[in-house]
């Protein structure tokens, strides 16, 4: 069964403005998908529809075969597809870390003893074990966002949806969060990362590019980044290292075509230098 499947998904506001236009995507279980798009491309709307926070105008979304337009399925869908939002402060319910993480399990009626175990597991998964009794307001952005992820993990979801969850973080915090997400994916959780940071897309299995509510490109990161002209047309920049590699190539340096990450570029340049 597919983790997520949308068919002919449309969404428009009452004033007639179309946000999503005939979106057909599917995500396999265990996959790590990046949903890219500039502001206003409809990517956050898509996330909200998946989670049942918004109802599509037409078309269907199925999460593990459960239709999200059926109110009776919402509870189950939200349990299985957890969502982390952009602003870390605005998704914390409690003023102590463990109480906040307990919020989800409490809602679905997990017995108190098991909630304690779930808190430990969730905190270990995001590497925040020492912060169980901490106050979120005193933590850094990256730490807060990891706590928010732990709050979702405590519901034992199968899909983790990140809705621009790194947009308000500094580069260091972004790295912290992304490395945790990568590990979660390795442990079997399906990840849908909605972002406009191209660098985050380098490590994923598949990239989906949205523009004006339509799916424009789909494929592995290398496939998508190879089409830099199209990306530009959809308001997206290349990953920084790929951009630099491209410019160097244009300037005459013999740099190979499939360089997208900083590490790869560094290696390539070192080799070039040593060869003289």
């Amino acid at each position: 069964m597919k983790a997520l499947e949308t068919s002919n998904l449309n969404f428009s506001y009452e004033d007639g403005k179309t946000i999503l236009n005939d979106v057909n995507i599917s995500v396999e279980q265990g996959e790590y998908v990046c949903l890219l798009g500039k502001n206003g491309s409809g990517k956050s709307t898509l996330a909200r529809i998946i989670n049942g926070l918004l109802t599509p105008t037409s078309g269907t979304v199925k999460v593990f075969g459960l239709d999200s337009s059926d109110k009776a399925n919402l509870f189950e869908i939200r349990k299985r597809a957890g969502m982390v939002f952009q602003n870390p402060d605005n998704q914390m319910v409690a003023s102590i870390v463990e109480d906040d993480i307990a919020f989800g399990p409490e809602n679905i009626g997990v017995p108190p003893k098991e909630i304690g175990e779930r808190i430990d597991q969730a905190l270990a998964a995001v590497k925040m074990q020492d912060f169980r009794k901490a106050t979120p307001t005193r933590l850094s952005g990256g730490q807060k966002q990891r706590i928010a992820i732990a709050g979702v993990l405590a519901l034992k979801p199968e899909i983790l949806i990140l809705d621009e969850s790194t947009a308000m973080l500094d580069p260091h915090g972004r790295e912290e969060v992304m490395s945790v997400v990568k590990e979660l994916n390795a442990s079997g959780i399906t990840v849908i990362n909605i972002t406009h940071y191209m660098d985050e897309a380098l490590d994923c299995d598949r990239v989906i590019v949205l523009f004006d509510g339509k799916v424009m490109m789909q494929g592995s990161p290398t496939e998508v980044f190879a089409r830099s002209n199209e990306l530009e047309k959809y308001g997206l920049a290349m990953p920084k290292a790929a951009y630099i590699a491209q410019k160097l190539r244009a300037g005459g340096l013999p740099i190979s075509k499939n360089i997208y990450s900083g590490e790869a570029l560094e290696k390539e340049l070192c080799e070039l230098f040593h060869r003289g």
Partner: protein
Amino acid sequence: MLKDVTFGQYYPCESFVHKMDPRTKILLVIAYITFIFLVKNFIGFAVVALFLAIAVIFSHVPIKSVIRSVKGVLFIVVLAALLNVFFYGGADAEVLSIGGVKLKWWIFSITRQGLVNAAFMTVRIVLLVLGTCILTLTTTPMDLTEAIEKLLYPLNLIKIPVHYFALIMSIALRFIPNLMEETDRIVNAQKSRGADFESGNLFSRVKSLVPILLPLLVSAFRRAEELGDAMDSRCYSGAKGRTKFKKLKFSYRDPIAAVVALAVLAGVILANIYFPHII
């Protein structure tokens, strides 16, 4: 800055008082307030103050933090004291005199009873504030709302949704630091555009608050919406079918506290009976 405002903010520690059940602590504070209003003389206040001292010692909260809580109400204390000193109007008023000069001018007069009353009021207010501060210093907002929810549980029977009130209260407390920070930011932003908050008469000063309050209000609504979404997607659906991770439990500490409180009550009553005069 504003972020540092403390009105008896929780002092993390593992003391006897911290570990008491928050329900007991709330009931004790209510009892304590009642005692203070029962007291008719300074001996009674001494008994209450002794009780307070015991509570402070067993709470391991530094005296400095406790005293600091009075600062916030200093204005009210001073005002109440001054009013009492100058405007005592009882029939038994005897105006004091220094070196044959009566301390009386226009509508002001300093009387012996006024001075005594002022002292009495001051002690009463200070004790009130100190006592309630021990509660907030030793209890997390979460525990406090939990306890209030439990204590008000009977109201559910007459269809008052106690769970929602408790949740609203705990979320409000949770967002105080965020809103403080935000206020700071808005004030700085408006100042950097030339807004003036410090001069002018009262009216224009109040008016100058509008450009702070409006953005704050708008952003609070935005926060509320986002928090609502986050709560929804974490499967929140009201009190029904919810479990509680932290269960409040009474321990051996709670009956001990109750016995101490009864002793204090006895002390206050005895003081009232055996010392009928205020001093």
